[in-house]
């Protein structure tokens, strides 16, 4: 298939394709980070993760309308403010959901699947009632669209670069939070041994609520970011949920490093195969590979050694 092309053309296509793989990596990782905290750390199977992301996207939409109506001069930077709003909004909703629903189910992790699935349906219908069943168009500042021409034939999408930077910042933030901060250490302690953590004076209920809300907040940031590359509608969250769980489960539920490694390997496999065969076939092969590896290694790529 490459016989008709010059080396220069092939070189630039491979450079762009490599970049496409990196963008996909960032997207998968950003989707999965929030869930890695909620599912990986807390063991809650959060089927409403996609809907939290879409809440972030809708908040971005509202912020963009707000800025274009009242503060048109600042429209160029509204996106970053929208991200903060998205985080706060989803964080608050997350706390509320944890308090009303999730905290009653810590002893019954499988039931969280049903409860959060119900929640996802409720949220979808709520979005449909409030924002209408149609997708909304989120207007982005001009500088965030378009591409950056590295050379005559290599063009790098600007929004892809922004997604990568955001993902990098959030990942480092989450990593530092879990490893270094007091709250992060407490939340890991609660996950490992709830009774013991309580006994040494950690307020487990508060830690749980904070951890769950944080995972939701990160989902909100992811949702805000994805308005650059995807659609914003009541059911758009469903587009992400399968990939999100795939990444987290494949990586080994409790390991952040595993999530990163898993997002990287899935995205690279997917984007390389997509280039050489059709999109559906690439997806089939990626999923098959993941299934085979999970059959051989049910605990995922990375797993903590815990005495059960």
């Amino acid at each position, binding site marked *: 298939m490459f016989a008709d092309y010059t080396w220069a053309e092939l070189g630039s296509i491979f450079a*762009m394709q490599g970049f*496409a793989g990196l963008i996909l990596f960032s997207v998968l990782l950003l989707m999965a980070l929030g869930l890695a905290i909620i599912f990986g750390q807390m063991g809650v199977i959060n089927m409403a993760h996609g809907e939290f992301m879409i809440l972030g996207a809708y908040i971005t939409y509202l912020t963009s309308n707000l800025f274009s109506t009242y503060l048109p001069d600042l429209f160029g930077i509204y996106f970053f403010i929208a991200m903060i709003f998205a985080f706060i909004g989803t964080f608050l909703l997350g706390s509320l959901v944890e308090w009303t629903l999730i905290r009653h189910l810590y002893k019954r992790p499988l039931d969280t699947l049903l409860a959060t699935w119900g929640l996802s349906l409720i949220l979808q219908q709520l979005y449909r009632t409030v924002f209408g069943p149609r997708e909304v*168009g989120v207007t982005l500042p001009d500088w965030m669209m*378009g591409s950056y021409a590295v050379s005559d034939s290599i*063009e790098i999408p600007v929004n892809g670069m922004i997604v990568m930077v955001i993902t990098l910042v959030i990942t480092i933030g989450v990593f530092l939070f879990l490893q270094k901060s007091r709250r992060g250490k407490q939340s890991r302690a609660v996950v490992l041994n709830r009774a013991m953590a309580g006994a040494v004076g950690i307020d487990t209920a508060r830690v749980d609520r904070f951890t769950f809300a944080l995972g939701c907040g990160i989902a909100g940031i992811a949702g805000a970011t994805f308005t650059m590359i*995807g659609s914003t509608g009541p*059911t758009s969250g469903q*587009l992400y949920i399968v990939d999100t769980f795939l990444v987290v489960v494949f990586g080994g539920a409790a390991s952040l490093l595993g999530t990163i490694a898993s997002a990287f390997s899935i995205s690279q496999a997917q984007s390389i195969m997509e280039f050489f065969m059709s*999109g559906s076939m690439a997806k089939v092969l990626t999923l098959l590979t993941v299934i085979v590896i999970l059959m051989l290694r049910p605990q995922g790529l990375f797993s903590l050694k815990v005495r059960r």
Partner: protein
Amino acid sequence: MKKEISSSRLGTTRRTLLKGLAALPAAMVLASSSYAADVNTTGLAVTDDTVKVGILHSITGTMAISETGSVQAEKLAIQQINDMGGVLGRKIEYIQEDGASDWPTFAEKSKKLLVNDKVAAVFGCWTSASRKAALPVFEQYNGMLFYPTFYEGLEQSPNVIYTGQEATQQILKGIDWAKETKGAKKFFLLGSDYIWPRTSNKIARKHIEKLGLKVVGEEYYPLGHTQFNSVINKIKLKKPDVIFTTVVGGSNVAFYKQLKAAGIDLTKEKPLVLTLSVTEDEILGIGGENVDGLYASMKYFQSLPNDNNKKFVAEFKKMWGEKSVIGDVTQAAYLGPWIWKAAVEKAGSFDVDAIKKTLPGIELTTAPEGYVKVHPNHHLWSKSRIGHAKADGTFDVVYESKDLIEPNPFPKGYQ
């Protein structure tokens, strides 16, 4: 219920008899009214002054995004018909059911509308999957379905009127136009992975090769796919003159945003992007600035300059708000009640078997898209048009076929 209305027209003996048959549905009792019986011999929900019809679309679930417009158009048509005095002197009452984007639900609700409610006609279904699920029910209970969506063809039922275009009507002229007006030689076919894009691309490929042109790529992505960077790179490598797309739903938004981000400016037409699946409805979600310069091949655009359409757009906006937009399928859904009305009046009866005889040949001169006519194969004769999208989310019509295109759901040589 409304026994009084009909009993006044009944003899005493028959009334006694009817009391004994109280278990029969009320509709059956009404049907025996001598006046209503003239226009309804099969026990449909028709009284002296009303007739019931069904509206069956998804108002919840993933498809609600697309089907809302169709519901609005059907309600508008019904209201306008009622304002003009109804059908055969009877006001239309509609019973709306929700298909909930779930195909078995469409079958179940169809049965409910036909068997329990005895509706005279149903306006509904959107995806081919929902139509295929409901079709056996309509054939078994002899109902009449008016189906609005452009679709892949390969179907013809005596119990369905297809008011959208079948694939050849939508595709062939579009490709001819790209060849003749734009000098296109190389095509890249891209679609979502299900029956409509695959059948459409099969027809497109056959036609492109018949014209002596070349297909340089054909790709499908799962429904809901959101990452198109790889295929965009592939397109850049193959350098087609035309990207011919049948991507649907949320994927569309991702595709056009990423196309723009990858530096492919649609207004430069290098390559030109020709779509079958982006109407004014979809542009709301994609954002007009992301599809500025896109070409779409379909039969209707909101900006069509004829008088019928101007009136239709004005009344649609009056009923559903200034911000509402009208896409191809919405207009096709609007035709359903009008075609049904014309067929019923020509037959002088609401009976499904009677209107089956009168439907072929029914003409509408007041259709927003212009003149349409029902073909004996239950599809519509209609024109093909090409629209050029602008940043404000509307299309300029840049091409219109001279004649009506004959519907051909089973195209020979294209399968």
